[in-house]
């Protein structure tokens, strides 16, 4: 690919003609009560080589804006006013046939979930060639050469080999690179990236963000970046539009927005963003007795292959994990997807068979069947997605009372009184008890899940990614609730998260997991203040920093295979030995 040598981003440059300009765009949905606006009067100009971030929480209309530009709005939604000009042509007035020619060629889009935007039954090469041929008639060989160039441009290792692979054979980060390759293969003027890294792990997110920045520099592509993550905004954007409820709250250069936000909403949004190192590194109080101890916990899943269904491979989800969760502390497990952190949560909740030993509030558990009803009273779990974790056909009051019913606690009236107290404790009102889960917002639903977990007065609450699906402002309030519960009720938390900044803001002690084993464990001050293991350092460095002036250290930018927890049956993974480097700070030996 002959890469155009475009100069860097806009601000210092003399303002050239905008590639894309949106003027007073209003998008409305047709309802029974008439048209209801989803996006109201949004305007912006985008110049060559510039990155514009549209930031906002869920329901702010940022995704609808991007779909309107692409002409991909759902059938009952349409642009009712304004114009979207691509080099002078108003895209909103174009017939679908001409729009189709522009889409993918001049304006390309990257979606959030790379697996669903690739066709699982076509090879990567075939999909790339198809996309190229759809817009530029050329010989097959030429199209294939173009496809290969695109894969090289997104820095995939072994690009020739990748062309012949199917999407499921690639890791999440590689798939997103393929999606980006497809988007840039035709060298579009504008690239719209809708939450391009939200579904990816932090280290992979780092790679994809670096790649997007390189592509902008090399190809001069203008990028519209839709995101809820202020860290990503700070790193990528030249200019920012902050949206709320379909309207623009504030727009301006990224440094100005972060350093001197003019509007209260922007200020509140930035204040709610969890930041690494924002909390002072204090040393934890004197260690108390453990509530829950894991000793050599191992969880393996057999994979049956072949005609006879013999076990040939195993997933080593958790491999010899030992740790203590002490009374009244928040113990955090961090790691990327597939590291086994959620499996540990499920093991403690008695949902998965395991080897090793768990001591939970005096009960010694050696197998799944030892997790009886009495044990469950002492440990409760709060799941990631509150919408999925509540039975949609039951009233929330009944759901919160259900643990009491199952464990035969109290009379009907007493249970009702307990539920009312719990509702007030988690910040809901008594009047909401008889409603159904769908009548609540995401944050409220998570409060209901927390109330439900509290009903049995457990000693340990396992919070499995419990704030990950929430908007930052809601997330901040739920985290505050968890802190209060720890202080007031003395309950211990096992806090499981992939988000280093959130963990930094709430944890007392931290364990970093990788491929089913603990790499580093210690107090928050030890692990985040003085990370010893290279993997911990990599994780911390990868976190996007919500500060435009922050400079990330440079690193290699080539996507390679991610090690897999699936191994042959006769080939168990080597156990890492944890070494104390002082004060109970445990670090895995290299190997």
């Amino acid at each position: 690919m002959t890469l155009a040598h475009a100069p860097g981003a806009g601000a210092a440059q003399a303002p050239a003609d905008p590639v894309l300009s949106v003027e007073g765009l209003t998008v409305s949905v047709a309802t029974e009560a008439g048209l209801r606006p989803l996006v109201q009067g949004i305007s912006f100009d985008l110049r060559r080589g510039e990155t514009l971030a549209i930031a906002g929480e869920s329901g702010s209309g940022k995704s609808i804006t991007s779909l309107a530009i692409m002409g991909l709005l759902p059938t009952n939604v349409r642009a009712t006013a304004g114009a979207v000009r691509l080099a002078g042509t108003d895209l909103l007035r174009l017939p679908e046939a001409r729009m189709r020619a522009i889409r993918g060629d001049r304006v390309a889009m990257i979606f959030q979930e790379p697996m669903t935007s690739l066709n699982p039954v076509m090879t990567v090469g075939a999909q790339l060639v198809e996309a190229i041929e759809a817009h530029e008639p050329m010989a097959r060989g030429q199209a294939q050469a173009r496809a290969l160039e695109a894969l090289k441009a997104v820095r995939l290792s072994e690009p020739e080999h990748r062309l012949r692979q199917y999407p499921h054979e690639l890791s999440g980060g590689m798939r997103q690179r393929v999606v980006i390759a497809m988007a840039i293969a035709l060298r579009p003027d504008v690239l719209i990236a809708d939450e391009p890294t939200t579904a990816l792990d932090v280290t992979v997110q780092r790679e994809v963000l670096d790649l997007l920045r390189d592509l902008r520099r090399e190809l001069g592509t203008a990028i519209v970046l839709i995101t809820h993550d202020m860290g990503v905004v700070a790193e990528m954007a030249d200019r920012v539009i902050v949206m709320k409820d379909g309207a623009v709250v504030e727009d301006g250069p990224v440094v100005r927005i972060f350093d001197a936000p003019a509007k209260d909403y922007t200020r509140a949004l930035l204040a709610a963003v969890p930041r690494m190192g924002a909390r002072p590194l204090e040393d934890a109080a004197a260690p108390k007795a453990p509530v829950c101890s894991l000793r050599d916990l191992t969880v393996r899943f057999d994979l049956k292959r072949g005609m006879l269904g013999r076990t040939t491979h195993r997933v080593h989800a958790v491999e010899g994990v030992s740790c203590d969760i002490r009374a009244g502390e928040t113990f955090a497990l961090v790691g990327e997807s597939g590291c086994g952190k959620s499996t540990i949560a499920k093991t403690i909740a008695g949902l998965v068979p395991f080897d090793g030993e768990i001591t939970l509030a005096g009960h010694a558990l050696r197998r799944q069947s030892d997790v009886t009803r009495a044990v469950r009273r002492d440990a409760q779990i709060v799941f990631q997605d509150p919408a999925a974790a509540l039975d949609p056909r039951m009233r929330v009051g009944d759901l919160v009372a259900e643990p009491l019913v199952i464990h035969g606690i109290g009379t009907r009236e007493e249970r009702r009184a307990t539920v009312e107290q719990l509702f007030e404790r988690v910040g809901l009102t008594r009047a909401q008890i008889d409603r159904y889960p769908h009548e609540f917002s995401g944050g409220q639903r998570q409060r209901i899940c927390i109330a439900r977990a509290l009903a049995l007065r457990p000693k340990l609450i396992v919070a499995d990614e419990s704030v990950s699906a929430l908007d930052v402002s809601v997330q901040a309030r739920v985290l505050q609730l968890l802190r209060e519960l720890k202080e007031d009720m003395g309950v211990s938390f096992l806090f499981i998260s992939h988000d280093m900044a959130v963990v930094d803001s709430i944890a007392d002690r931290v364990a970093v997991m990788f491929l089913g084993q603990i790499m580093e464990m210690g107090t928050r001050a030890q692990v985040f203040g003085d990370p010893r293991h290279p993997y911990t350092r990599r994780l911390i460095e990868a976190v996007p920093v919500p500060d435009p002036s922050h400079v990330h250290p440079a690193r290699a930018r080539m996507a390679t295979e991610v090690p897999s927890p699936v191994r042959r049956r006769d080939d168990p993974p080597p156990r890492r030995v944890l070494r104390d480097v002082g004060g109970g700070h445990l670090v895995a030996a290299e190997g």
Partner: protein
Amino acid sequence: MSDAVLPEPRRRTALARLARRPLAVLGLVIIAVTVAAALAAPWIAPFGRDEQLFEGLTLEGAPMPPGGAFLLGTDLLGRDLLTRILYGARTSLVIGVVANGMALLIGTLVGVTAGYFRGWAGSVLMRFTDLMMAFPALLLAICLAAIFTPSLWIVALVIALVNWVQVARVLYTETTSLAERDFIAAERAIGAGNGRILWLHILPHLVPTIIVWGTLGISTTVLLEATLSFLGIGVQPPEPSWGNIIFENQTYFQAAPWLVFFPGMAILLLALAFNLVGDALRDVLDPTQRGRG
């Protein structure tokens, strides 16, 4: 997503909400009229059930068209069609409700058990279901009918034993995906037993599917009964059923169309009525659909 407080929606009992839907009320009325007519057949029918009337045939021996003393005309043997349809409603209701109900019950038991517990028991149940599915339904019905002496209740049983298969298959798939949902894991984590999970957290979610299959099953079972009657292994003549009236007379469709048209309409109306009620019931029982009508 914010912590905003939503307005309090109005709450009514399921029955009251059903009564607010005109189509559902229409369906209920049709079903009520059919049941009443079937029960009151001996009193409201203008003639005897199997009475072959001399005036019921023309001089050439052809059946009488609708009109005059015979509101819906007569059949080939000079019997009053209205009378036959009124009595036939008894058979068809028993088949449509009892046979179909049994089929749903068996299908739900098999499908939910296999889908929830999985394991070898689930595999055995589902392989058996597959076997039944592969077996021609009619052949099976003929075999079963040959073993038992035909009567209305045996016919209902035979139809149930043939028709549960699809229900089981569909509910199996739904149950397996439901059992993987987070809220079921959440139930297990608070210590809920299998009985509680199945009854309170799985079955309510299957109700819409059961209702859809139940209402669809009404017409298929009524027609299967007609097929069996036609083959001589269903309800035995001269006892009328809507299905066997159609089959007796289909050869004369061009000469005497009313003989097929009226019983056909009766089946259609009954199936439609159950469909309307079923649809409304499904919406009414779903809490996420509340306040929309």
